[in-house]
């Protein structure tokens, strides 16, 4: 025991001498020389790059900032052109009004059901199907894979009429099934893309682990579920984020299949809010809002409320993305989409 400790100590001390002071200084000198060698033009170029990047960042963040700032403005600020980025008085009430006008909780629930189930379908089905494409050879594989690509190219509108009829005959209208069930078969919103992503990822994965599992008598499903899926984290994350965002923002399919107001997802509610902005509020809605606005002699619902509503709609996606962001970015770089 003591002997081991002694050797350890010796080793560490030996290691230290490897990074001896002269080497360190030499390193520093090299660096200094390098820095001196940086020409003026290079420096200008570097500063220019940062200016460009920050300008671009401003452009990309603009809609986001605009939404927040506008949503906090009072009516007076809204029509005052000198008020640009900093509202003179912050009016959080806009959010309360938007929250009520959207009937937020109820429609949030609709959207959550639709998005979460749809995304779950994509993750389960596409990781499964992609595995078949990556690791097995069977007659008709090329044909099937070209169908995967084809399914991406066909615009939804080309096939939506027969699809509508199918779902009509199945009595699935006004439910979320037309949006959710296809995802479990590798279809739905850009399902083909996710199959493609998973296939590419599995192709870049070393096969040794699966072979070892197979030799030990692991069945094909268990190999996929217990061995491959846990390693496929980055592809799973990319699919999760993309599918989540696309499902959340999708309004086309719900607008076709769902006609009952009660069941529309949250983003579609924004149209209602716009109608409220453009037309004077009707009696019953006005009654519910009037006590909030009794103090002020301005219209209850204006553009600021609209932006507050829009921001409320985006908040869930933003929060999800904030949590998944760093792993998602790593995942994109590691899925091997490029190969």
């Amino acid at each position, binding site marked *: 025991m003591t002997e081991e400790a002694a050797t350890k100590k010796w080793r560490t001390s030996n290691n230290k001498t490897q990074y001896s002071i002269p080497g360190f200084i030499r390193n520093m000198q090299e660096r200094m020389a390098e820095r001196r060698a940086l020409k003026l033009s290079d420096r200008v170029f570097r500063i220019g*790059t940062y200016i460009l990047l920050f300008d671009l960042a401003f452009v990309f963040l603009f809609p*986001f900032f605009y939404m927040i700032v506008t949503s906090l403005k009072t009516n007076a600020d809204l029509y005052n052109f000198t008020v640009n980025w900093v509202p003179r008085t912050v009016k959080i009430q806009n959010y309360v009004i938007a929250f009520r006008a959207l009937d937020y909780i109820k429609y949030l629930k609709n959207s959550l059901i639709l998005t979460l189930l749809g995304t779950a379908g994509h993750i389960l089905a596409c990781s499964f199907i992609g595995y078949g494409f990556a690791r097995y050879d069977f007659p008709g594989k090329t044909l099937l894979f070209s169908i995967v690509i084809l399914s991406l190219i066909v615009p939804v509108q*080309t096939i939506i009429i027969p699809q509508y009829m199918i779902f009509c005959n199945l009595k699935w209208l006004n439910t979320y099934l037309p949006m959710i069930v*296809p995802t479990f078969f590798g279809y739905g919103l850009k399902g083909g893309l996710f199959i493609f992503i998973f296939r590419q990822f599995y192709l870049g994965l070393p096969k040794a682990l699966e072979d070892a599992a197979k030799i030990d008598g692991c069945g094909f499903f268990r190999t996929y579920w217990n061995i491959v899926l846990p390693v496929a984290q980055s592809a799973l994350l990319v699919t999760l984020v993309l599918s989540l965002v696309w499902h959340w923002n999708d309004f086309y399919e719900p607008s076709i299949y769902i006609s009952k107001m009660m069941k529309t997802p949250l983003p579609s509610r924004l149209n209602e809010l716009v109608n409220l902005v453009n037309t004077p509020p009707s009696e019953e809605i006005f009654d519910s809002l009037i006590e909030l606005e009794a103090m002020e002699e301005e219209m209850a619902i204006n553009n600021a409320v609209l932006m507050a509503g829009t921001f409320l709609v985006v908040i869930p996606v933003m929060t999800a993305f904030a949590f998944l*962001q760093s792993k998602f970015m790593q995942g994109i770089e590691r899925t091997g989409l490029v190969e």
Partner: protein
Amino acid sequence: MKKFRIGAEKRNILEGYIFVLPFILGTLIFFAFPLYMSIKLSFGKLQRIEGFIIRWIGFGNYLKAFITDTKFIPMFVGVFRHTLIKAPLTIIFALIIAILINKNVKFRGFFRTVFFIPFLLGMGEVMKQLLGQGVDRQVVSISGGRLLPRELLMYLGPKVVEAIDSFFGIIIVVLWGSGVQILLFLSGLQSIPASLYESSKVDGATEWEMFWKITFPMISPILLLNIVYTLIASFTDITNPILEYIQNLAFKGMEFEYAATIGWIYFVFIIILVMLVFILLRNYVYTTDAKEAKRNDRRSSY
């Protein structure tokens, strides 16, 4: 012994089919059947919705699209021109931004995330509301008189100012729509082995030469992928007027047959275009030793 091996092979094939079985079922129900029905619909007249009873009438609907319908062709040309302007801009901007971020800059993670934010806002209702408020024109707006002095604006005249503003509006919307492309390019740039740049630097190559001789060929596969993605995204975008037209025909005008016809014409056009791009550009894509070099590089760096 031999029999057992054949059995194992067959089992392998069977397992493969089990994995893709959901996709086969999905294709039959949600893809092949609707596709077939819509082509049948485009050549016929719908008699009854229950049971899809369709009477064959021939090319009548197609003739209508190309000859009688005065709205379709101009709309079609408009969409095509729109894509022809926006797609190259998207690709170029995305590539430039990706290269800028990929350089050894500080706050790299910050920029990477920021450039993805418009994607979260989506191209759906939220973006519609924002564009409805003219956000795209406010980002870089010279008519407000902040960027340029009013005298200059007066000199240019309202028409020129308006044109410049809408030009910037287009650029801004293009930028917002390039989040996915930037990410794809970034992943492509990341996979280029650093050793290539180092050795070329030793040989005295300039940045410009390095871009055209190393970066560009190495990301050409992802460039092709990006071009195809951008084209498809632009053609199948919900805000596309043709797609809106199809929807109005079908669900407001109840002209199911004609809507299916337009859908098919449009679809065939997209397929031909994408195939054309793919075939034309595939010859320029650099694929050979690149993968091998990359793998070696990755192995040594991890």
